[in-house]
């Protein structure tokens, strides 16, 4: 899959913001979520119809994401105003619960947009939603720790929460990479064109191997630009290292040092988000759509 910058920024940024919101509502994450969701409109080819995306809540994860995100803005905005003014009481608790629930709902819907796509084996796995939720909470927890270092009397509990999410997110990311390495579920060119592998005799075309002779178009098409992105395995390995070091290694090391000052804490959060941008780029770049089989790839 072609890694589109707007979607990568959108999912990482809103993920961090949503994770932070869920944890606070447990702040000004508003900016992150708003930036992320505004960026998601950028990849639309016809944004004037974006308002229609509220209309298929019953069937489409993208529509659900749009509805929950639109509901999150007024609710969380009101909640943040009450937090800043230190007012509220019961209504503030209600808004906190609502904000938290809506932030989780948006995170899960975003993840399910990808996880529900059956033609993309690397996305159609249970680890996709687990990753989105935990990575959002991990980067959000780091931001929360930075805020706590600046404003809270004790930042220790926040550091602990960030550490727990950091380790859980790291485990989820490693499990995801392990899961997509398992190619037993991969589809092949032979299956895509109906050749029964190794079969002889009548029935769907019977022969062992198939290969592309001619792709039928002279230059790029929508399909090659959207699905034809290729990433060499050794580049993927290098970038996974970068994502692990920036997204997990350095911020976790900072947590272990645990200096309760907001500057290094914020640096750790920014470092983590840079790492997650690389991670999200890889999430797209490593995904192979079944259309690529028809364009000659032997397997997905």
């Amino acid at each position: 899959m072609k890694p589109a910058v707007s979607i990568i920024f959108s999912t990482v940024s809103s993920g961090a913001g949503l994770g932070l919101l869920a944890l606070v509502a447990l702040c000004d994450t508003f900016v992150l979520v708003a930036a992320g969701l505004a960026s998601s409109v950028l990849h639309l080819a016809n944004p004037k119809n974006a308002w229609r995306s509220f209309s298929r809540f019953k069937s489409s994860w993208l529509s659900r994401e749009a509805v929950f995100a639109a509901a999150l803005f007024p609710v969380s905005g009101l909640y943040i105003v009450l937090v800043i003014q230190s007012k509220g009481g019961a209504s503030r608790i209600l808004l906190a619960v609502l904000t938290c629930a809506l932030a989780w709902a948006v995170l899960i819907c975003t993840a399910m947009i990808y996880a529900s796509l059956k033609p993309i084996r690397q996305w159609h796995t249970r680890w996709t939603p687990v990753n989105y939720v935990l990575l959002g909470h991990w980067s959000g927890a780091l931001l929360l720790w930075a805020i706590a270092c600046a404003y809270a009397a004790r930042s220790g509990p926040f550091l602990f929460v960030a550490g727990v999410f950091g380790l859980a997110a790291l485990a989820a990311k490693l499990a995801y990479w392990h899961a997509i390495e398992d190619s037993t579920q991969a589809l092949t060119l032979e299956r895509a064109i109906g050749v029964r592998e190794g079969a002889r005799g009548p029935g769907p075309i019977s022969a062992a191997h198939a290969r592309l002779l001619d792709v039928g178009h002279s230059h790029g098409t929508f399909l090659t630009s959207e699905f034809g992105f290729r990433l060499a395995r050794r580049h993927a390995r290098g970038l996974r290292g970068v994502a692990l070091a920036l997204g997990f290694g350095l911020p976790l090391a900072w947590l272990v040092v645990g200096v309760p000052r907001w500057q290094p804490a914020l640096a750790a959060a920014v470092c983590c988000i840079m790492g997650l941008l690389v991670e999200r780029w890889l999430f797209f770049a490593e995904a192979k759509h079944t259309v690529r089989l028809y364009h000659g790839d032997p397997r997905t």
Partner: protein
Amino acid sequence: MKLGLVIDLDTCVGCHACATACKEWNASSKVNGALSDYEPFGAEPSGVWFNRVRHYEVGDYPENKTINFPVCCMHCADADCVTVCPTGASYKRDDGIVLVDQDKCMGCNLCAWACPYGARELDQVPGTMKKCTLCVDRIYDEMLAPEDRQPACVLACPTHARMFGDFDDPQSEVSRVTAERGGFGLLPELGYAPVSRYLPPRQPQPVIDADDARALLERGLASLASPVIRR
């Protein structure tokens, strides 16, 4: 109704007539609007097509075979491209045809991601998704002669490798030929229940089997040799 196509991989010669006829008809169709071309006379022409023909080699020499393989929308019974659409632009009609309402599409590409066959292409000019309409503006047009009420690709095919009809009707040509020839759908394991069917290439039947051929040859040689030996 379950309208769809049958594509005969035995007779398809890979001439791309279906693809160009489709482009020609749909470029002026009111269903999707024009099918944009990008730099059609430039160094790298590209554009929106509903039908793409690819060519594969199947098997290893000497048991290899070229398969010409046209792909367009399968008008799936359980079409995920419709399910994932957030705006309601993608929809499935009662007759089985999957269409995109150009006035509602916001160009998010999610339906193209959900389609395993690559049957949907974004038109960059209006920024909307376009796809095979099964020539919905031909097949019901009573101004046309009955034999012309078929998709442009079917009418254009010089080897009659494409057939159009209702798969819900067991007496239709498409249902009968699918049953007779073992027609199959693509990637059924993904669960989209594609409606259109592909007919596998026929297995070549040897005119005479190997043992008979050897016996004939020996008899022939013997009849040639015998006068010489006798002399």
